[in-house]
């Protein structure tokens, strides 16, 4: 039997999928890219709850995107399932190697090391003329066994894939966060030595969290690549990773839905800031983040608690 929450999520997802048929194209595109980023931020939130801030999620975001780009070009395939799978494997392989080192570090050292690895990927890609250097290259539009999901000239497949993946990932992570292993994250943040004394390997817990975050980031990268149709090394640049941290801080780490909704709000805010003041859009974003940090230190999600308290 499905619980009330599960029914709600499935209904919301179904509604969003149907809404894709009537919403304007720019909006479904924005939601797709936002959900892709939201998945990356979801991974970041898992790490943040364990007290680790990664400034290098761009590494997996970019690796996932390039895996999709290179694979679809080399094997001449545009099957969305295959491409997402390739990105997952790519994120899994890289993170299980890099994670061995990173899971030994905490605080600023973890942040800096994670950033260093993403900048290495950036540096390598910029030097690779075959991959288009800093200009990157174009990626084919995805299809589902040849079906492109075209409606009025609008390709809805990546939008639907993004919604489904976000819901599935959100549900899995929601369960994970409530499992003993997920809960250990907060314990590690509060007191790592006590956790060790309880007989749990902190390094192993963090290693697994790191891999989960990496896989989510590469899935996000694969969705971005298929939706935008173009990838470049900028995806691994530290400012991209910084944007994920920005969204995480803005949204809050209280719930799995927070990063996904936060990413949509961030993209909406940015696009209207772009439109309303082409010269000072950065200032609008900066002021927004500052006021959220000052007035809502736990992110936008803490608003829901306030509403709940107000209702009681």
């Amino acid at each position: 039997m499905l619980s009330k929450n599960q029914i709600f999520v499935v209904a919301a997802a179904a509604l969003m999928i149907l809404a894709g048929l009537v919403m304007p194209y720019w909006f479904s595109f924005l939601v797709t890219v936002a959900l892709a980023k939201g998945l990356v931020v979801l991974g970041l939130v898992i790490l943040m709850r364990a007290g680790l801030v990664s400034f290098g999620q761009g590494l997996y975001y970019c690796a996932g995107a390039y895996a999709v780009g290179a694979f679809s070009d080399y094997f001449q395939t545009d099957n969305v399932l295959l491409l997402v799978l390739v990105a997952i494997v790519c994120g899994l392989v890289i993170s299980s190697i890099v994670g061995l080192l990173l899971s030994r570090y905490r605080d600023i050292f973890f942040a800096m090391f994670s950033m260093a690895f993403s900048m290495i990927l950036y540096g390598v890609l910029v030097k690779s003329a075959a991959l288009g250097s800093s200009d990157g290259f174009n990626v084919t539009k995805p299809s589902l066994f040849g079906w492109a999901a075209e409606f009025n000239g609008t390709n809805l497949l990546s939008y639907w894939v993004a919604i489904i993946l976000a819901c599935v990932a959100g549900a899995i992570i929601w369960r994970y966060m409530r499992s003993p292993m997920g809960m250990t994250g907060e314990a590690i943040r509060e007191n790592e030595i006590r956790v060790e004394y309880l007989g749990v390997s902190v390094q192993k817990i963090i290693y697994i969290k790191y891999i989960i975050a990496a896989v989510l980031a590469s899935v996000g990268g694969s969705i971005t690549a298929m939706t935008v149709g173009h990838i470049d090394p900028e995806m691994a640049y530290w400012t991209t990773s910084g944007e994920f941290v920005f969204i995480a801080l803005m949204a809050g780490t209280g719930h799995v839905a927070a990063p996904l909704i936060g990413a949509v709000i961030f993209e909406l805010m940015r696009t209207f800031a772009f439109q309303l003041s082409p010269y000072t859009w950065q200032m609008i974003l900066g002021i927004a983040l500052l006021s959220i940090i000052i007035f809502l230190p736990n992110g936008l999600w803490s608003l829901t608690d306030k509403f709940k308290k107000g209702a009681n």
Partner: protein
Amino acid sequence: MLKTISKMAVYGAVAFGALTATAQAADEYKLGLVTFLSGGAAGPFGVPAKNGADLLVDALNAGTVPAPYNKVGINGVKINPVYVDEAGGATKQVSEYRNLVERQGVNAVVGYISSGDCLAVPGVAEEMKKVTVLFDCGTPRVFEEADYKFVFRTAATATMDNVGAARYIAEKVGGLASVSGINQNYSFGHDSWNDFTTSLEQIKKGVDVSTKQFPKIYAGQYGAEVSALMVNPAEVVHSSFWGGDMEAFLLQGAARGLFEDQKVLLTCGESALYKFADNFPEGAIVGARGPNGVFAPKSELNDWFVKEYEARYGTKPTYPVYHMVQAIMGLKLATEKAAANAGEIPTDEAVAGAFEYLEFDSPAGKIAMTNGNGHQAVQEMVFGQVSKENGEVVMKDVVRYAPSCVNPPNGVKAADWIASGFEGAVCN
């Protein structure tokens, strides 16, 4: 959660309403203009280009541009420019492109300085069937890797900068035995250096490469690179630097005497020729990515344009301004050619059809859309050397290369063309 979702639904509805409202306005020609308004490329390229667009749009709306551009606005419809910042990367730009077309309801888009954006945007332009003119980016890959129906580029590719540069130094620099290079570590820097060295191999055999340096873009400090260039001297130092990087390199190189016995060749030099005139060493070889600025051929249109620009902004127009202006002019002519009656805005299909293989005059002389199956312009390429007379910069030893001398024929990839020894090139 419910509240957030219902809130989102409201936002969506508001945005949808805004969209349907804008789509109805048709008494103006909405022109989407995308250039860098923030970041490192805004100062040398983005803002001058925007200034050029402002000037031309105002003059077109007033009907004061010389013939054949003397019709008001575009085909009698006044132009309403909508600006978007190009900052934020290709993903952001693809997203903003959709917003321009759907939310703002623009009639056409002119824009893009970054080659990455120029590669990313055509895909969505084709999907949305919207006439789009790329105005400044240099990579030849745009029309080499794909065919587009609605996408055009009215400025020549960066290939001709470096083919022209190689031809120029082979001709004008006596005793040329070696070259060295300092280029930014990104696509444009790598491509420029590759095109330059491979062209030089074809034109003059046996020229050595003393050293090649690829500092980070926006590095600003070139102490180590200048040392490397000085201990490995060459007759010519090639650089595709632009903006603050070029200025910093010129200042730091001059302070250490780098340019005293090595000639510096700046393929994008003209973009800073007026702003940093004092920093250019005597005899520096300078290009303008086409016959722009000081190299523009004399014409009534160019005289008008330079005079107006100088009066409004207090400086002479540089090449990004020329690129912007010729893009809008090309779009205007194609639209008017496609329109049956004055005051009508033709369909994107009709405009795209009229734009193909279009030839038109611009302040930078003749633009011919002959490459990329009628979607990519070729222009002549000009190089000259800086000379200062009474504090004013003048160009000496100017050499003009015909379009067919420095651009590959239609359908041939730039790299293949250079490797083939410029097969089919016709030089004057």
